[in-house]
């Protein structure tokens, strides 16, 4: 199954991780802000490309839901890293949870999975703008496929080439799982270190095929495009307070116990 395995990778266009966002009028102001490929999606792309290079997969398709201009740029970055082709679903709605929400994204992905029939869907564990982490699990649910979230390592499984062996990072430790394909896997930070796109690959990316479709075509086919969650308020986190200097360890312990209440 590996030889013919198709991988579908989600690539989300988000606010660049280094940018300090501003809250204005109860929303995040996105004008003139630097946007880039979601770091976790970048890790997913890297993993997919590595699987292709090690002959575990034969084709990698990158999928983006985003604005006409920006979305193509994000896809080209993924193509320059080594994906074979892209699917760009254009929408002028905000994709940072305020308008296009995980439920819609999952339904669109299900539609694409039905069409392309990949054996593996690789996604970033979450978008750094919405921090939802919902598309992976929702998509697995819609497809009725097994899912492994927060993958920190990925290799061929022990039971033949239709299985994968993964490490999954949780707050209480790392699990080792084996999963039967087809499956949905979301990628965490320690899975790999994404490559820089080489210049020849940047040039090749220009010629790779990107299939552009409007999101309304999915709406017509039955996908629910409306947001069902309304964001009531957005505030900036409280600004960092100055620390205090304690005289000795006893004072530190008493402060931790009585004031911070962490011990």
């Amino acid at each position, binding site marked *: 199954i590996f030889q013919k395995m198709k991988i579908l990778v989600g690539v989300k266009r988000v606010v660049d991780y280094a940018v300090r966002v501003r809250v204005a009028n109860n929303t995040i102001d996105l004008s003139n802000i630097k946007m880039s490929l979601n770091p976790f999606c970048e890790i997913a792309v890297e993993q997919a490309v590595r699987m292709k290079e090690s002959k575990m997969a034969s084709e990698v398709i990158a999928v983006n839901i985003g604005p006409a201009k920006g979305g193509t740029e994000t896809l080209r970055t993924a193509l*320059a890293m080594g994906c074979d082709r892209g699917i760009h679903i254009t929408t002028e709605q905000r994709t940072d949870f305020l308008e296009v929400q995980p439920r819609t994204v999952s339904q669109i992905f299900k539609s694409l999975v039905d069409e392309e029939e990949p054996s593996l869907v690789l996604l970033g564990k979450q978008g750094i703008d919405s921090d939802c982490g919902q598309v992976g699990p929702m998509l697995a649910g819609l497809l009725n496929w097994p899912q492994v979230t927060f993958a920190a390592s990925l290799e061929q499984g022990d039971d033949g080439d239709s299985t994968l062996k993964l490490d999954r990072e949780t707050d209480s430790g790392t699990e080792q799982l084996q999963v039967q394909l087809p499956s949905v896997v979301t990628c965490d930070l320690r899975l790999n270190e994404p490559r*820089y796109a080489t*210049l020849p690959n*940047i*040039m090749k*990316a220009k010629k790779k095929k990107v299939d552009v479709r409007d999101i309304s075509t999915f709406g017509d086919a039955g996908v629910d495009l409306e947001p069902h969650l309304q964001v009531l308020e957005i505030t900036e986190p409280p600004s960092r307070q100055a620390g205090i200097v304690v005289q000795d360890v006893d004072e530190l312990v008493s402060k931790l116990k009585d004031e911070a209440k962490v011990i």
Partner: protein
Amino acid sequence: HRHQKLLLYWHSIDFFHYFFRSDIYYKASHLSRVEIHQHNSVHIKNPILEITMSLQTISRRLLSRSTATLVSKKSKPLVTTMATRSYLSHSQLPEEHKMIYDMCRSFADNELSPNAGEWDKKHEFPTDAVTKLAELGMMGINVSSDFGGSEMDALSYAIAMEEISRGCASVGVIMSAHNSLYLYPIDTWGTDAQKEQFVEPYATCAHGDGLKVGCFGLSEPGNGSDAGAASTTATLDGDEWVLNGTKAWITNAHEASAAVVFATTDKDLKHKGISAFIVPMDAEGFSLGAKEDKLGIRASSTANLIMDQVRIPKDYLLGEQGQGFKIAMQTLDGGRIGVAGQALGIASASIDVAAKYALEREAFGKPIAQLQSIQNKLSAMAVARDSARLLTWRAAMLKDNKERFVREAAMAKLAASEAATMCAHQAIQVLGGMGYVSDMPAERHYRDARITEIYEGTSEIQHLVIAGDLFKEYKQAS
């Protein structure tokens, strides 16, 4: 009517207003001018920021009769020639240039900036980083893919040079000397056999024998600017050339394995007697001088190439006999775009460090960024850097369009190198005492910037080149 055809069309861009006020042209006679007009394919709500450069000579007769017709905002340009691309900022670049910009920028931030200080202190050639650059295709950036290169254009090169040099100016010069000065002449004038041997293994890093770097031997102890007075000789002996002489100030000398060397085959013909040769540096009789102890770009090696009865096969002659000077000059034209890119990188790095510092450092009760003296400095630095960047991009675009770009490249290098020294100087000033110590990179930028006004044509030579080309144009018109 004829006069109507002369109408020039420009926007009152504050930035360019300084240069293109209409009163300068009122009733002026023989002029050549830069035409700014709206580029059609870029749709921007506020067209103030669009520029397309094209050069136009307007005959004296027509102009002297023109009056207020010179100024009109809506008039159509006479001729739309040249570079029809209109990139004002990185966001207006085509996709692949933006991708190169992003890639080089993150490479510089992750791999170069954190280590540049260390490399500078130890005078250490950053082999790992340069090898990674080669693996990314940056050490063969303009070479055709038939010979293992990345086949990118000059604009990509300029952008890549700026971002890489922002991280480490030494890596910038290593990359620039290798690409513009070594690979370009062989790729342009070399035979296929020469390219297979001396371009392909040097444009990629895929040959298992590690990083292969080249260098360019033109300057000598006795002549730098006066390139036509080369005293290194090449004599034909049977089917071998015998080279004798010394080349000075050669970048990459200690890491390179091949050099493009200029030697005279007939001193009587002066600069027309100079020829270019490809010299493998492991040839017998070839040796290196000691590494120069430089003020800046210390991670790159600079030394003499000493040739004592060095024999090379007859077919290592590059181009034709006597064509050497022309090869050198044309190579340097392209090299100037690379060095301009490097200088821009140093200027940008200086602006980065100064601006970030100014936002944090407090004096008189507030961050110094709120003080006018500091604001004036940062603004001047940004204008100098941005204008030099546009000059550099213009030269690159002309080169890509296969148009003559000698003057524009000289202007770019002149402006960028002066911007680099000014920005680095002011960056130290903004940082105050912190600018003087090695804890902050400002002092390294100051030292790195200085060489950009000297190599690949001193600023004085650039002035001569620009003036020469300028006067040539006026002489043609009259």
